[in-house]
């Protein structure tokens, strides 16, 4: 079933929310206001947005160090995200986690993670719980091409298939793990080629096309909710920016050519989506412009909120260690 107008516009809005949020993060990082590490999601927006558009609020997601796009795509609040990046008490995690550890359990965001592939078993476990509890919640994990080579990833896929768990393994193949090309680190042509070895469907999708990602995910969601088990979806995508903000040594030692970067920048997921939804006449260019303008205001308000949010007090250092 093709997405309706509201969903198409919501997808556009969420892509803009990620894009403008990330542009703002880059700005406040270069001005020195943001000091911690941050990994920009720019270029990959269609992946998280297309995938999360197929989920409900009660479904779970878990992610990785490239961590701002997933929660925003799931419907996370921008102010809480920005405040977390600034280490403020108004952040999702009260400033304890920072950029790489955004989490909002109230809408199923079980947490981003700095240790590559460490969320894959976590999402698998959430799917196990859903099955044990007789719920129809599904679980989705975002992980990179680099992460796909970790043992935790392979072990999780085997268990998920063995136990028919409602989990979607969503691989964001942006083609590099810092400087290492997947062509030099993955033994098959595509990560989705590994799915048959785990006895689950493997799907290769154009990750710059939000609607294509959405449609592939809808199938996987139906399968998972019907108790038929996991799916591995590989989205081919590209990160337009550096691996992380401030990693100059990598910039000085180029591992990908300017031509390659430029070529992929031509495949920007936002114009691709705008083109798709306006060309059928469902949405007008004015609708699109309005979305973008609205998001600019929202992101500015989020930054304002984050700046005004107080830092945690010293006594909070020892809070949140132990559950009651």
């Amino acid at each position, binding site marked *: 079933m093709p997405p309706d107008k509201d969903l198409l516009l919501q997808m556009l809005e969420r892509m803009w929310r990620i894009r403008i949020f990330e542009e703002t993060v880059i700005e406040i990082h270069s001005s020195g206001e943001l000091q911690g590490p941050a990994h920009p999601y720019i270029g990959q927006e269609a992946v998280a947005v297309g995938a999360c558009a197929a989920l409900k609020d009660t479904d779970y997601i878990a992610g990785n160090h490239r961590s701002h796009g997933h929660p925003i795509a799931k419907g996370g609040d921008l102010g809480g995200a920005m405040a977390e990046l600034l280490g403020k008490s108004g952040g999702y995690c009260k400033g304890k986690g920072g950029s*790489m550890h955004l989490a909002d359990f109230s809408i199923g965001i079980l947490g981003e*993670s*700095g240790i590559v592939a460490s969320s894959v078993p976590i999402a698998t476990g959430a799917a196990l719980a859903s099955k044990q509890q007789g719920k129809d919640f599904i679980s989705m994990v975002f992980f990179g091409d680099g992460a796909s080579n970790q043992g935790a990833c392979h072990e999780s896929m085997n268990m998920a298939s063995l136990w028919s768990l409602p989990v979607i393994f969503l691989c964001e193949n942006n083609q590099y*793990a*810092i400087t290492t090309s997947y062509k030099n680190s993955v033994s098959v042509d595509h990560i989705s080629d590994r799915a048959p070895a785990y006895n689950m469907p493997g799907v290769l999708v154009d990750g710059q096309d939000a609607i294509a990602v959405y449609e592939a995910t809808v199938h996987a969601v139906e399968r998972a909710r019907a108790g038929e088990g996991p799916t591995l979806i590989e989205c081919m995508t590209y990160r337009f920016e550096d691996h992380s903000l401030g990693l100059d040594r*990598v910039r000085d*030692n180029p591992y990908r050519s300017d031509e390659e970067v430029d070529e992929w920048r031509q495949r920007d997921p936002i114009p691709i989506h705008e083109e798709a939804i306006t060309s059928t006449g469902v949405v007008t260019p004015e609708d699109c412009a309005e979305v973008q303008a609205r998001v600019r205001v929202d992101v500015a308000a989020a930054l304002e909120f984050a700046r005004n949010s107080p830092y945690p007090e010293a006594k909070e250092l020892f809070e949140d260690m132990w559950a009651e």
Partner: protein
Amino acid sequence: MPNMTYMAAIAEATREEMERDESVYLMGEDIRASVYGASAGLFEIFGEDRVIDTPLSENGFFGAAIGSSLVGQRPIVETVTSFFWVGMDQMISQAAKMRYMFGGQAKLPVTWRARMFYARGAAAHHSDRNYNIFMSTPGLKVICPTNPYDAKGLMKTAVRDNNPCLIFEDGIAISSRGEVPANEDLPGGELLVPFGEARIVREGTDCTIVGIAGGVAHAENAAKILEGEGISCEIIDPRTLVPLDKQTILTSVEKTGRLVVVDPAHEVCSVASEISSIVAQEAFWSLQAPIIKVASAQVNVPYSPALEPLVYPTPERVIEAVRETMS
């Protein structure tokens, strides 16, 4: 004498050892690109068999390094202390135990070099000062160089050692520069710093401060200020935690009668705990005041710049501790 950065010293040690011995090779993530700053140019010299960019698979390639060492290779593995957790099964179940389990048949000349990030807003997943965990595991040598000279000399010793060695490159120490003699100016033509010999960083008479890793710099800063108050501190850098040079520490405490241990690890079961226990048992009658540990708070590392600095030892905390032992 050439003045160089800590990472340049590590890079020089790596190149020299690779030139000297064909069985030495380097493996890790993004090492051709020298993401952590110690491997630039090595691929061009030694080629792909000896400079290996691995997939992102720590447990796998740590284990492969160990396996290769059993049959004659001498791998240097580059990583980050926080990623030790991922490969820890191979490090502890295999590298630390194989020789003993197999009745002494195995030699395991693997050197891990790990960057220890902390105090920079890297949050709980990237701020592990975990040398204490490995120190309490029998079968692993644990090395904490705190300046470029020791970094080079200890690294070369580690590569030649026939046991698994872990080098912790402290984020505070790696920003240091220092003098490292040229090989032609050295008696044996090369810089080798032996394991198990502490360095007396500064002599003093009133209080012994043992600094672990980045704790040494805090101790030095504190000692300068305390000197102005008429308190003379003796600073000891053990340099290697396994083997540990107990004697230098005990001799110093016998002289000063006081001990403060500065350790960036979490305070419970830290290196500071171990050294305190050794001194309490073996130099008890020399002590004129209780031993004080200045270690990290027993809490995960928070991200917020308002909270993170409260976790670690600082020169101020060292000064306070020394004053307390003197009062």
